[in-house]
């Protein structure tokens, strides 16, 4: 029961009330001292922090060291070797070219696929299953799969032969454009699924009401697409784009399987320098180039694709 005291009065029925006169305050009891403990969350995330730092930060430092330190001490010789190598700048060119061509293609393809399924055609479940299989396929496997298609005695030339047309040396080192085409097709096949899944999930979060309201107010399909669906997909697309670009910078086994060094890419060159040419220093240097470019690209993306605050509210 509340104690009676100044400001508190007993009323009939055992009711305690406060009256209009102010009551004196009793100070709250002092807090008991508690034993100092490492907070639980820190203990739980600790191992992961240690792990990631050890396998990420440490190799970076070692890598920088490898790139600029030779047997006799600090040197820029390896960096110069890297820049002077006849395969380096083509590798840079091809890698960037891949990104510039692949990313828009993949996103258009993925969004188109998502829009197709959104219309709920028959066998949508089966289609979805097949479209998503490449997600779990390694880039090496993808390269080998398309190798069986594009190689001189492969399936594409076989089909052409059946149709009475001449075959073509798609992957010959003299035919750079078709090598590029083959790599693009293979990567398109392999890596679009990731973007597709992210876009589908993003689309399912768009409430149907917006779309239906637009339709009621007379918008055509393309108008709805442009003004309702795509803007709401923006966050998903942003995430997907950063991820995809970073991954595209690391294109390796696909090109390796299809064309080897006929189609140099940055990570491919890293591998070459490390394994065939037995020069971990230059390999590390190229690895760092990839790292830096990835970092720069992420930052650039985050700035470019930042949604202005006003638009977000829509």
């Amino acid at each position, binding site marked *: *029961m*509340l*104690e009676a005291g100044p400001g508190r*009065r007993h*009323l009939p*029925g*055992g*009711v*305690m*009330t*406060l*009256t*209009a*006169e102010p009551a004196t*305050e*009793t100070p*709250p*009891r*002092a*807090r*008991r001292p*508690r034993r100092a403990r490492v907070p639980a969350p820190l203990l739980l995330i600790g191992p992961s922090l240690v792990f990631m730092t050890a396998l990420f930060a440490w190799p970076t430092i070692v890598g920088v060291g490898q790139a600029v330190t030779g047997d006799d001490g600090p040197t820029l010789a390896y960096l110069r070797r890297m820049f002077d190598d006849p395969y380096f700048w083509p590798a840079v060119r091809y890698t960037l070219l891949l990104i510039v061509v692949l990313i828009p293609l993949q996103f258009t393809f993925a969004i188109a696929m998502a829009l197709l399924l959104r219309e709920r055609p028959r066998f949508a479940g089966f289609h979805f299953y097949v479209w998503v299989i490449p997600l779990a396929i390694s880039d090496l496997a993808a390269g080998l799969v398309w190798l069986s298609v594009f190689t001189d005695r492969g399936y594409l030339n076989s089909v052409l032969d059946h149709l009475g047309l001449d075959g073509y040396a798609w992957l010959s080192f003299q035919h750079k454009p078709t090598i590029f085409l083959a790599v693009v097709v293979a990567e398109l096949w392999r890596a679009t699924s990731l973007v597709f899944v992210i876009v589908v999930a993003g689309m399912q979060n768009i409430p149907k009401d917006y779309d239906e309201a637009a339709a009621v107010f007379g918008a055509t399909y393309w108008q709805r697409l442009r003004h309702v669906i795509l803007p709401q997909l923006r966050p998903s697309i942003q995430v997907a784009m950063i991820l995809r670009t970073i991954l595209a910078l690391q294109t390796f086994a696909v090109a390796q399987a299809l064309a080897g060094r006929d189609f140099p890419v940055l990570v491919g060159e890293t591998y070459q320098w490390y394994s065939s040419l037995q020069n971990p220093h230059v390999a590390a240097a190229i690895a760092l180039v990839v790292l830096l470019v990835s970092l720069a690209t992420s930052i650039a993306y985050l700035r470019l694709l930042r949604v202005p605050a006003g638009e977000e509210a829509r």
Partner: protein
Amino acid sequence: MADIVIDHLVKTYPGATTRATDDVSLTVADGEFLVLVGPSGCGKTTLLRMVAGLEAPDGGTIAIAGRDVTDLPARERRLSMVFQSYAIFPHLRVRQNIGFGLTMRKVPKDEVDRRVREAAAVLELTDYLDRYPAQLSGGQRQRVAVARAIVVDAGVLLMDEPLSNLDALLRLQFRAELKRIVRRVGATTLYVTHDQAEAMSLGDRVAVMRSGRIAQLGPPIEVYDHPSERFVGGFLGAPPMNFVPATVRVNGAGPSLHIGEQVLPAPEHLDPYRDRAVLLGVRAENLEVATVQQPGWLTARVEVVEPTGASVLLTVRLGEHEVKVQAPPTFRVEPDSAVWLRPPVQSLRFYDAETGLVLAGAA
């Protein structure tokens, strides 16, 4: 003796500027059913969770059955609790859910079985013992939560808005059943709700809370009939208590209340408050109402007529103020017509116009 003694409990959430509970002290007697009621944010749930051991107070102590439990973790406090969302484990059968507390305390299996069956019988869950929660309706899941709480036979039972997720009809039905079950079990019960009707119907005593403090504590009828402050009167009851500003004037015939232009005789004990502005509190059901002019009664104009079946709820305008009047179901009147009101003197309550607290000396 499983009583709960809460002493000067203080809690502020990190980042908040006001206290969630502001130096609250409260004793729940052994076997008593005490309801904490108040609007959201008043601190009732925080208080309950501190008693449960799910939140740690910044200051003050909690004692259960004479033991200081303030620093003890929840599982050592020997409590039982029903959660608002039921918190029934979906991967266990009903039988295992109900027996969870017993299993955790390493009670032998056959005794667990027996007690689970008994609790299930009380809550009419016997046919569902081997089902999974996903196969039950919301009302049945709620019963499982209650069964789980009563089967452990803890001295203290805590309930956090257990009925609020049920639909209105179920809520009403289960309210009576809950009261019956808790009485039968005999545990000391601390019950939180935001529904004032629920609080009134269930509690032996009701603690009305606001902004981290207990505004008033007492048996339901007393808190209803004699609110200690304007907030309590306005919170309990549907419709809430009417509050009309008035001025006390004293002349040769004694004190009178001036409500706008109209005058009512005032009880003698208001004499010390001459020339003061006060708030007149009167409940809708206590106002007598007539469609024919009565001498000495207050006049008002009808604005809205709501026949609720059991009564007719009138919204009338008394001078500048809106007043709710509960008339008998046969009362007939049209909007915009005049009515005459008389509050019986013994049903009037008087509050300080500024602080809202009941005037000292007022009956």
